[in-house]
């Protein structure tokens, strides 16, 4: 490490103002701060600082996504085996998924980070850590059969129009990863829904007779009974987006987020509460099979768990006041189930519910702030 440090120290003057590589200052800075926590000290104000920084926070989220990612890889192989009627051992199954998911992850990171570096350089800013998480979220919310170029286009759209036009990390209104998915969902709907997108069959293979590839939600939406067992849905042996199928893997991630304090428990809990209320209401007034699906099954189907744990809790696009978080989370759960069950066009409501609430989060916060102001004013006049 010492040698690398010396190298950086030697190279640094060339990237400072007046140096011949000044135009690459942000890129240099990005690499330097990735390798070394800088030697900045507190000048005034507090003389000591918490060790946590944005990089650490982002890394925690990435770590909490790893169980879902690994299981997703395995499940891709597992679903493939089911579809083509093959048997394979654990490692073969995992490897099948691994080599198909890895390129998606790589494309997402390369595209996104490339744009981040370029915009930071253009503005003369430091490179922000925000995309570390988005780059991992984007692959996990995609169906496995999404072409790589589409991933690249969606990522570019999300980073540029979802984030950079607002000023970069911390300024965006919508969750970038969901923006990417929503972009594909509306631009290329045939690649984002239907029964054939979730399972990798592979060229030259044929699906076995009777294989449908429909997700649990698609079955329910069409009025068919759900053919997947509760335990399969919980552990994740069902078709779906790469990272969303295993509720167990997501719960492990949730535990990491909650214990480290990186994810908001208020949002997660209230979203589940909102989903429960809506689910119960639908159960009570059930007139079709989908409405009769027990409310708790919604939590293990589709993207509900993934969205609530990893997407709704994105601190930038979520509500930021403590009370606002309760309202925001509740409405996400409530609307997600409503859209899912009532709207025939979209079998998955979580993405739209979160994006909708992203847009409303500032409004919710506004009212929470106003009520705080009113309460304080009232207290002041009572005293006077």
């Amino acid at each position, binding site marked *: 490490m010492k040698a690398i440090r010396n190298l950086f120290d030697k190279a640094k003057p060339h990237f400072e103002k007046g140096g011949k590589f000044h135009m690459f200052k942000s890129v240099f800075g990005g690499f330097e701060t990735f390798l070394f926590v800088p*030697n900045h000290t507190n000048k005034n104000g507090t003389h000591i600082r918490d060790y946590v920084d944005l990089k650490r926070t982002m890394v925690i989220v990435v770590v909490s996504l790893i169980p879902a990612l690994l299981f997703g890889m395995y499940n891709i192989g597992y679903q493939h085996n089911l579809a083509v009627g093959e048997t394979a051992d654990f490692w073969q199954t995992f490897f099948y998924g691994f080599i198909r998911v890895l390129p998606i992850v790589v494309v997402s990171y390369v595209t996104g980070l490339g744009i981040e570096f370029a915009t930071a350089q253009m503005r003369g800013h430091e490179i922000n850590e925000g995309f570390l998480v988005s780059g991992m979220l984007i692959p996990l919310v995609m169906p496995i059969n999404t072409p790589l170029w589409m991933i690249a286009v969606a990522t570019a759209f999300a980073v540029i129009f979802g984030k950079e036009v607002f000023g970069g990390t911390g300024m965006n209104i919508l969750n970038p990863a969901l923006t990417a998915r929503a972009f594909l969902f509306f631009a290329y709907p045939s690649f984002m829904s239907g029964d054939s997108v979730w399972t990798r069959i592979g060229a030259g293979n044929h699906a076995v007779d009777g294989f449908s590839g429909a997700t649990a939600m698609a079955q329910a939406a069409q009025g068919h009974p759900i053919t997947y067992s509760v335990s399969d849905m919980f552990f994740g042996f069902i078709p779906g987006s790469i990272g969303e199928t295993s509720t167990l893997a997501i719960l492990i991630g949730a535990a990491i987020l909650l214990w480290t*304090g990186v994810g908001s428990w208020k949002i997660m809990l209230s979203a589940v509460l909102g989903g429960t209320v809506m689910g119960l209401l639908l159960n009570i007034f059930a007139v079709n099979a989908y409405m009769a699906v027990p409310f708790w099954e919604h939590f293990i189907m589709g993207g509900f768990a993934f969205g609530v744990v990893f997407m709704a809790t994105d601190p930038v696009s979520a509500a930021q006041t403590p009370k606002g978080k309760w309202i925001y989370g509740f409405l996400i759960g409530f609307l997600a189930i409503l859209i899912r069950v009532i709207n025939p066009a979209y079998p998955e409501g979580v993405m739209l519910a979160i994006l909708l609430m992203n847009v409303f989060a500032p409004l919710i916060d506004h009212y929470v702030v106003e009520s705080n102001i009113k*309460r304080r004013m009232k207290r002041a006049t009572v005293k006077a």
Partner: protein
Amino acid sequence: MSNVIKLKRGLDIQLKGRAEKILDQMDRPDTFAIKPTDFHGLTPKLAAKEGDKVKAGSPLFFDKYQPEVKYVSPVSGEVVAVNRGERRKILEVVVKADGENQSEEFRKANPADLSRDEVREELLRSGLWPAFKMRPYGVVARPDENPRDIFISCFDSAPLAPDYDYILSGEESAWQTGLDALSKLTDGKIYLGLPAEGANKVFANSKGVEINRFQGPHPAGNVGIQLHTVAPLAKNEVVWTIQPQDVVAIGKLFEKGIYDPSRIIAFAGSEVKEPRYYRTWVGANLAGLFKGRLTNDHVRFISGNVLTGNRIESDGFLGFYDSMVSVIPEGDYYEAFGWALPGFNKFSPSHTFFSWLGSKKKKYRLDTNMHGEERAFVVSGEYEKVLPMDILPVYLLKAILANDIDKMEKLGIYDVVEEDMALCEYVCTSKIQVQSILRKGIDSMIKELG
């Protein structure tokens, strides 16, 4: 009678090097200095030039806009330097002590027999007036105002802070005389904030005051938090605050008729060989204190605590309001992959580093490294956890950044000064300079509204 108020939100940062309760005498330094920069918003006008002879209690400079508020020399001697910074701003007025201990004569009297004007006159003349700060804004109190109440916090919950009950034991009579003088200055009450337990030697038996006890982590000992909890400020109300050692100095002024600049400070921090208490003076040069008492020479000297204190040089002077001096290691090093390592030894109130595996009582040696770079606000909800006030701190800061006076007022800028939000700055993931933003906001409030 006292009731215990429980505050849940906050944070105690466990640092190494708490001062042992042993009192040492610091050698009398050659030079002393009063620093106009200790007093926010002050425009100083010099009252003494280089070469002038002064006594303890003779004015060195005064406030241009309130000439009756004087800032006096703590010792008798000669003014040897007026150190200036950028744009000739006065940073320090240095006095070389002559060792004769001559003091200006002030009136000896029982404050109970004096009128409000007489008490105020004495305090202004003796240079003890600047010990009063006003809320809102945390600037030196304006003598012509009639404060609603006076608040005194009798304990300091900041990291490594001194124990006032220990410092002032034996000064009970001066303490009470000081309180009597204070009671002349307000029609309201004098509120004392005591810790949930202890502090019984000096403070618990005070007369003519209302006592509240506070339980909870830092900033429970901050007078602003206590004020906000007990009797929050309404618009246009003013409350004064003062620290216990200054109350005792006021008591001595009336009991003995002299300006007594002596203070006891805690000399603490992980780089101090034997952290303990020292008897010293307001504005004392600390070079003699540091010499030979440190374990390491690459350190940060802080007059005050590690959250709100001012950085000083190794030959710097004790600040006017400070009851402690902290010494911690400098952190100007690079750490390879510091953000990715498990961090068993990296204290963080979030559980993002594995230091949560360690004992809660474990003491840490923390340095001045920022552990990251400044970013936009990203993580929400972390400030609220360490600020036990009914305030939305991030919204307040954003209002200040947008220079929206109306919003600042509504969001509670009158309730806070830097020390109250220092922990927000400490925990901030985005490394935002909370305290300097807040001071900027307070400055523009003063400018706009007076």
